C-alpha cells in the first residue's frame, strides 16, 4: 500500500474500510501565489510587469478551494495530498500555507528559466512534475486570480492525457469515477469522469479551513521538494513563451461622476431621463 498515512489512529478509523489491495488515493493540487485581491496594482518602470515590492501575496482563492477539497477527500477516503507550485522563492510561503491547512507534502518548481513563462510553459512544467506522481486526481483553481487566464487546468489535462471537468462546485468520488457538478450560464450540470482526471475548483465548492497553530507548526517539518527545469527534463524549447506581454498599463480613468440632487422622486426621474436621453442606454 503506497503512501497511506500510518499511525494507530489512522488504522483504527480508516484502514479497515479499505482492503489492503486497494491503492490509496493520491490527489495533487496545483497552487498559484498571487497578489492579495485588496492590493493596488502599479506598473513597473519597464512598462511590462507590476511593482512587486510592497504587494501582499496570497494563495489564489480558487486554489484554496482545491486544497480544501483535496483534504476533505483524504478525510473521507484516506490517501495523500501533494501540492505543486511554480514560482520564485516567495512561493514557498504559499506552499507552507497549504501544508499548514493539512497537505502532506509539496513540490516547488523553481528555476530562473521559469521567469516569464506563459501559460503553456507553466502547464508543461507542472505536467512534467505531476506525470511521475501517478495521481488519481489533479485539482486546481478554475483561474489564478490576477492573470485570470482560466487556462492551466485545461492545458494540463491535455498534456497529461487526462479527462477534465472545469469549474466544479461539487465533487464526489466512487468506484474509480468522479461525479462533478458545475454551475454555468444559467445551467446546473452534472458530469461524470473516469479517474484519473483534472478537475478545476469554482467558488461554492467548499469553505476553506483556516490553518490551526498545530497545523502551522507541523507544516514547518513537512517536506518541500525543489525541482528545476533539468530535474523535470524540460528543454529551452518547451519553455519558450508563445505569448509576450509587450505593454502593461492602468485602465483609463472614468469620465467622472455626475451627482443627481433633490428628493428621491425627482432623483429617480432625472436618472431615468439621463440614462435615456444622454447616455442612451435605456
Amino acid at each position, binding site marked *: 500500500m503506497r503512501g497511506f498515512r500510518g499511525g494507530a489512529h489512522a488504522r483504527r478509523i480508516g484502514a479497515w474500510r479499505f482492503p489492503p489491495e486497494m491503492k490509496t488515493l493520491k490527489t495533487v493540487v496545483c497552487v498559484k501565489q498571487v497578489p492579495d485581491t485588496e492590493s493596488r*496594482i502599479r506598473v513597473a518602470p519597464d512598462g511590462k510587469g507590476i511593482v512587486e515590492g510592497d504587494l501582499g501575496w496570497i494563495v489564489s482563492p480558487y486554489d484554496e478551494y482545491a486544497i480544501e477539497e483535496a483534504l476533505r477527500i483524504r478525510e473521507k477516503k484516506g490517501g495523500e495530498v501533494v501540492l505543486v507550485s511554480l514560482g520564485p522563492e516567495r512561493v514557498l510561503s504559499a506552499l507552507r500555507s497549504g501544508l499548514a491547512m493539512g497537505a502532506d507534502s509539496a513540490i516547488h518548481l523553481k528555476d530562473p528559466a521559469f521567469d516569464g513563462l506563459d501559460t503553456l510553459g507553466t502547464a508543461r512544467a507542472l505536467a512534467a512534475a505531476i506525470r511521475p506522481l501517478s495521481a488519481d486526481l489533479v485539482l486546481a483553481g478554475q483561474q489564478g486570480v490576477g492573470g485570470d487566464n482560466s487556462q492551466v487546468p485545461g492545458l494540463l489535462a491535455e498534456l497529461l492525457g487526462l479527462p477534465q471537468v472545469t469549474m466544479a462546485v461539487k465533487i464526489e468520488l466512487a468506484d474509480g469515477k468522479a461525479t462533478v457538478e458545475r454551475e454555468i450560464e444559467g445551467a446546473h450540470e452534472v458530469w461524470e469522469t473516469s479517474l484519473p482526471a483534472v478537475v478545476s475548483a469554482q*467558488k*461554492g465548492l467548499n469553505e476553506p479551513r483556516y490553518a490551526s497553530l498545530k497545523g502551522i507548526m507541523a507544516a514547518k517539518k513537512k517536506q518541500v521538494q525543489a525541482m528545476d527545469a533539468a530535474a523535470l527534463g524540460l528543454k529551452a524549447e518547451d519553455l519558450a513563451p508563445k505569448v509576450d506581454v509587450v505593454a*502593461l498599463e*492602468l485602465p483609463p480613468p472614468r469620465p467622472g461622476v455626475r*451627482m443627481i440632487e433633490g428628493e428621491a422622486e425627482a432623483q429617480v426621474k432625472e436618472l*431615468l431621463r439621463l*440614462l435615456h436621453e444622454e*447616455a442612451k442606454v435605456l
Partner: protein
Amino acid sequence: MPTIVTFAEAREGALRRASLEAVSEARRLADAMGASVQSVVIGSGVGALAGELGAYGADRVHVFEHADLAAYATETWARALGQVITQETPAVVLVPFTAMGRDLAPRVAARVGAGLVSDCVRLEVKDGRLQARRPLYAGKAFATVRWQGDPQMATLRPNVFPLGRKDAARKPETVAGAVDAAARARVVSVAASAAGKVELTEAQIIVSGGRGLKGPENFHLVEELAGALGAAVGASRAVVDAGWVDHQYQVGQTGKTVSPTLYVAAGISGAIQHLAGMSSSKVIVAINKDPDAPIFKVADYGIVGDVFEILPRLTAAARAVRSAGH
C-alpha cells in the same frame, strides 16, 4: 491566403451571441489581413446554423453534425476543433470566452501547441500580426500582448466585440466534418440553475446589491429593479460571503468580471476587488447613502440616498417606461 478560424458555440440549436461576435471580429481582422474566415460548429441539428455564420462573415463553415454530439464534451469538441486547426493551419483562432470556450480553448491550445491569450477585449493587426488587449487583475491593469508563431489563439470577452453587418445574401461554403465522439468526461444531467436565465457576463444591464440593503430579506428590491429593466442580478462579495445570495451572483475579482452597457450598484460601497470586476462597464450608476463611498469614483451618475427609498421608485418608474413602449 491566411486563414482565421472561429469556434461557434451552439446551445439548444442556436448560436450564442458571443459566437456571432467572434465571427464578426474575425471578418474585420480578415479584411485587414487579407485573410479568409472559417467557422467551426459542432452539435446535433447544427447544420442550419452555417448560413447565419456566413451572413456575419464566414467564408467556409465546418459543420460537425451528429446525434452523438447532442451534449458538449470537452475531449470530443477539442478533437474536432483541433482537427480543423491541424488541417487548415490558420494564422488566428478565435473562441468566445464563455463557459464552454473557457473549458475548450486551453485543451485545444495544448493539443495544437498554440499560444492562447484569454479574455481579450480588443484585437488589432499590427505589421501583419495580431495584437491583443486584455485585462489583468480583473481590470486593475490592461496588457498588450503579442504572439510568437502561429496559430495566434485568443478567447474573446462576450459583450465587447460588436456584431458585424448581417448580410443574408453572403452564403458560406459548408464542409461536413466527422469526429470520434468518445469522451471520458461527460454531462449526465442538466438542470436550470437558481441563478436564472440572464448570464451575468453576457448581460446588457446588471443591477447589483450590496451591504447597504441591510439583510437578505431586502434583496428582492434589487431583483425587482432587475426584472423591470430586463437585467441580470449581481452582488458584492460582502453579501455573497454573508450568505444572502449564491456565489454565482458575485461581481468582482473573485467573482465575475462584467462589462455591461449599464451597471447599477445599489448599496455597494465599492471595495477595490468589486471595482475591478465592473469598472469597464459602459455606464455606471451608483446609489449609496455615503457620499464618500469609493463607488462614486467610478460612477457616471450618482445618487446619494437611501436604497430603500430609491429602488422601489426606480422600479416603478422603469416599469412605467417599459409599459409605455420604450
